[in-house]
């Protein structure tokens, strides 16, 4: 590190110039050229380098006394790949993924895998993987081997999960309708949007908050804030009764865990927020508690008798949605509360995770039926699966104002995709270990659920009927209506320019 220190000297006079203007512009161009490739943090082409100096040395992330079940740190070569050796003295240790090399690299399967990649959005290059694998087999040089291994890992990690035979092939238009519940509400008046109703009954504010909290932010108040709590308690009660274990999870998570769950944290299209890396170590904001729940089992060997594990968590979810649509509503927002289900199963018969998926799915339907929604259930097609999911089922509820079916809940079976990357295994009695399967599902995503309930249950006078199952959590209230003393406020206009005399 060089240390340069120049202090502005106010006493410098005119004559002390050393360079002309022209040479400055040349220099500035040189500087631009030198700087650009290094500073392109978001550029896809350049993988993000995590080096130790990114992390401020002032703040050790894990202080003494923190017990950790992690393995001791061993030295690995520095690497660009997020899966390899990420320390930051945080104690987080993630080996390269333990992929199914036998399956991936056997040329017998290449065509099958290629077809699968083609059906899902075409990310990953299996031929390259096989080629690298073959090169690695014949390579004799240690350095070359290491290089190849790294490259092989980087390529193989991109290969998506296998696909369930029942998943339809194609884009979202190919989704297969499985079931439909309830009927569309017939309104004898023009239904209002949730934002309008919310403002009328003083329960929601989404206008003029952009100045302070940015676009797509919203405040729930009074009735809707209570409905949020009611929905959480109602859902949790149901899950706990069904034998789920409630876990309180962190929302700030290292990107390695998020990547291992199958979500991209870099690149133009990432939906993952990241804290300022130079000051707050390498930390991202979780987009779903699935990340934290999966991260809880990182590098763990579970006992077969513990499985299947059913976990539930309430957490705040952060999504840097990139769409340009400028809708004011609460359908697509940057942060919201969600109750999530997460399961870990064994892989003995190969059917365990599918069974758990079915179980989660039944719970989701039960919640929607209890809340009196009109919804349909879809078997999602290959292009909608993302990389980790083997099979995905979505529930879409009827939104009477936008007149479409909107996704309110989703459940997917990730089989061993996540567990191979996070090293979650289980041990049988005879001592053999095998990768576990993971399943996740939304139990209740609050804003969308509230939007569905409010828009479908509205009355002509602007009030909203509260679903029966929620009433006991809302002080017995049956309707949301305008409070006696709504908060009255007025926006202040600035006096800039003329205001200069103040202060």
């Amino acid at each position, binding site marked *: 590190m060089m240390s340069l220190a120049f202090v*502005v000297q106010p006493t410098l006079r005119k004559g002390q110039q050393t360079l002309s203007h022209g040479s400055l512009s040349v220099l500035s161009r040189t500087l631009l050229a030198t700087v650009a490739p290094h500073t392109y943090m*978001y550029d896809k082409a350049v993988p993000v380098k995590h080096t130790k100096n990114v992390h401020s040395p002032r703040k050790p992330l894990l202080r003494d006394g923190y017990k*950790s079940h992690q393995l001791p740190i061993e030295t690995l070569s520095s690497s660009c790949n997020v899966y390899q050796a990420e320390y930051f003295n*945080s104690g987080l240790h993630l080996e390269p993924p333990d992929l199914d090399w036998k399956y991936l690299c056997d040329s017998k399967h290449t065509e099958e895998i290629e077809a699968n990649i083609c059906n899902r959005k075409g990310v990953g290059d299996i031929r390259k993987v096989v080629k690298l694998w073959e090169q690695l087999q014949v390579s004799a040089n240690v350095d070359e081997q290491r290089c190849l291994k790294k490259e092989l890992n980087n390529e193989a990690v991109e290969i998506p999960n296998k696909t369930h035979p029942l998943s339809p092939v194609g884009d979202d238009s190919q989704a297969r309708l499985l079931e439909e519940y309830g009927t569309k509400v017939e309104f004898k008046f023009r239904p209002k949007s949730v934002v309008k109703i919310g403002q009328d009954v003083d329960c929601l504010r989404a206008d003029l908050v952009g100045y302070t909290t*940015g676009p797509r932010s919203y405040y729930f108040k009074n009735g809707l804030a209570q409905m949020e709590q009611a929905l959480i308690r109602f859902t949790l009660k149901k899950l706990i009764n069904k034998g789920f274990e409630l876990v309180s999870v962190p929302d*700030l998570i290292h990107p390695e865990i998020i990547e291992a769950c199958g979500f991209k944290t870099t690149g133009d299209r990432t939906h993952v927020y990241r804290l300022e890396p130079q000051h707050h170590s390498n930390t991202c904001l979780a987009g779903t508690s699935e990340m934290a729940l999966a991260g809880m089992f990182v590098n763990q060997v579970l006992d077969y008798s513990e499985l299947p594990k059913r976990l539930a968590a309430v957490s705040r979810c952060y999504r840097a949605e990139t769409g340009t649509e400028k809708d004011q509503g609460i359908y697509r927002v940057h942060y919201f509360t969600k109750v999530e289900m997460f399961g870990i199963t064994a892989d003995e018969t190969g059917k365990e995770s599918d069974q758990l998926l079915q179980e989660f799915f039944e719970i989701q339907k039960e919640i929607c039926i209890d809340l009196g929604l009109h919804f349909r259930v879809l078997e999602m097609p290959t292009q909608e699966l993302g990389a980790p999911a083997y099979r995905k089922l979505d529930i879409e509820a009827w939104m009477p104002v936008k007149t479409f079916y909107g996704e309110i809940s989703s459940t997917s079976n990730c089989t061993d995709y996540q567990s191979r990357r996070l090293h979650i295994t289980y041990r049988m009695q005879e001592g053999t270990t095998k990768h576990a399967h993971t399943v996740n599902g939304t139990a209740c995503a609050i804003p969308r659920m509230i939007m569905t309930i409010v828009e479908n249950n509205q009355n002509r006078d602007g009030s909203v009927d509260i679903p029966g199952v929620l009433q006991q959590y809302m002080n017995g209230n049956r309707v949301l209506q305008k409070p006696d003393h709504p908060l009255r406020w*007025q926006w202040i206009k600035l006096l800039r320019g003329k205001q200069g005399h103040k202060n």
Partner: protein
Amino acid sequence: MQSVTRHPGYYSGTCKYIKTAKTVHTYSRYLILKKCALPTFRNLLGQRLSICPIHASWLLKRYSTSCVHSSLFRWKLQCENIFEQCTLSGYSHTKCYSSSALFVSGALGTRTAVVDLDLNLDKRLQDVQELQENITARGVDIDLDCLKRIYEEYCQMRNTRIWLEEERTKISTLVQTLRRREDTNEEIPKLTERGRELKLQYQKLMKHWWIIEEKMILAALKLPNDLHRDTPVNVREKMVKEHMAKPNFTFQAKSHSDIGQLSGEILFSPVSPRAYYLRGQLALLEQALTTYVTDVLLQESFTHFTCPDMFKSVVVEGCGFDICDPEQVYTVETHINMQEDTKIDENARKVTWDNTYHLAGVSPMSFAAYLTRITLGKDNLPLKCFTLGRQYSPTLDHLECSNPGLFNVHQRTQVELCGFATDATESEEVFEHFSSIVWNMHKNFQLPLRLSTMGASQLLPAESKRAEIQCWSTSLNTYCKIASVSMCSDYISRRLMMKWAPKSYEVAKSNYLHTVHACALNVPRLIACIMENRQKEDGSYDIPTALEPLMMK
């Protein structure tokens, strides 16, 4: 009026001006360019390197799209130190980004302010003695004399400015009326000449004005709130009352981390700095606590809010936090390239305070963001609200313990209260109300508690008084803060234009709201205290009786 040495190029327009400044720093730039073909400009700013703000802004303009955001912070810190020298030597730095998000100089055409500040300086700087005592008691470093001097200069300029403006309006109306009469009055050319003269004078004045104004306001924004008469000076805290005695264990008492880790109910995890998972009974306890507190507050007819978690820099600075200090607030990396819309103009692609977000969650900001630039009707006051959610904070308390466990974490579930009142007397009542609610709530958890009024040295800039509810911890061997109530008078509302009017539809003049903030529930700390104070020999612990019916089973 203190004389300011003006640079010869001072009045010749900003453009030339920057040029001059550039040449002055040519040498330093030359070195920067030469030696720092570095892993970059970024690192360069990471060094304790001082560069002229103009120069920096010049660089910044070119890199702000590709440059990582954090460099901005460092750079801003740098600039602040240099601003003074620059202004004194007469350099215009109006083209730079300011170190403040709240204040936007009128000389900047490109950015618009979110709020009009009203820092009440006329009144506050009248009694410098009291302010000086306040600053000394808090232990902050502010050169009050300097501020006072700039302020006086500013006042003189303000008078001149007002006079000039009035004079110009008079002349122009006179000329207009004369012209309308179509008199061939020989006064007109004289008057227009005079008008032109005044205009020139005005322009000259304004150039200086922007500099002095910015300098004064940046310094004034650092002033802390006035001290409340109850705030003790020279002591750390003053105890008000106590509840229950410290527990006397007949066995070797364990810390909450030992109890929790043995039973597997607390899992400290490396998934992020100081991350923890609560499982089994503890996760249920968290739900029970939030349910309990929510129910109590709804009974006291508080308004329930669910608030955003990210705030623009304006709000964070408005609440008295230093937005440049990474130990006070988390900053989210700006996703510049993520904006796919190509129509967005150049400015929107730059990292500025306006597209910088801070992750804070449940905090005084939650409500400040709601009421920024808002006039409330008097019939809504005093307004008492609460929000339940997650709080994120990089700040760590200084605790004398090698393993603070749940006492020092970065993310937690919390309940925040906020009260708005019309004046000091009413806010006094709100403060008392909040204190008694929070105190009684914690008393029901059957813990050894203490209520203290904190000393001036412990206060945050926005606070004029703070009461803390502290609980005994066997592992820390001391009383530790688990809840607090802060009186902020009109400090925050003056910065963020939070006003009230006798009728909500009236335009408020300068009736600023008085705010009271409180942290009513800090889940991890309270859980730790419950585990430690209510532990049994076998490593289990009792759930407080008030919470038992709320545990979901």
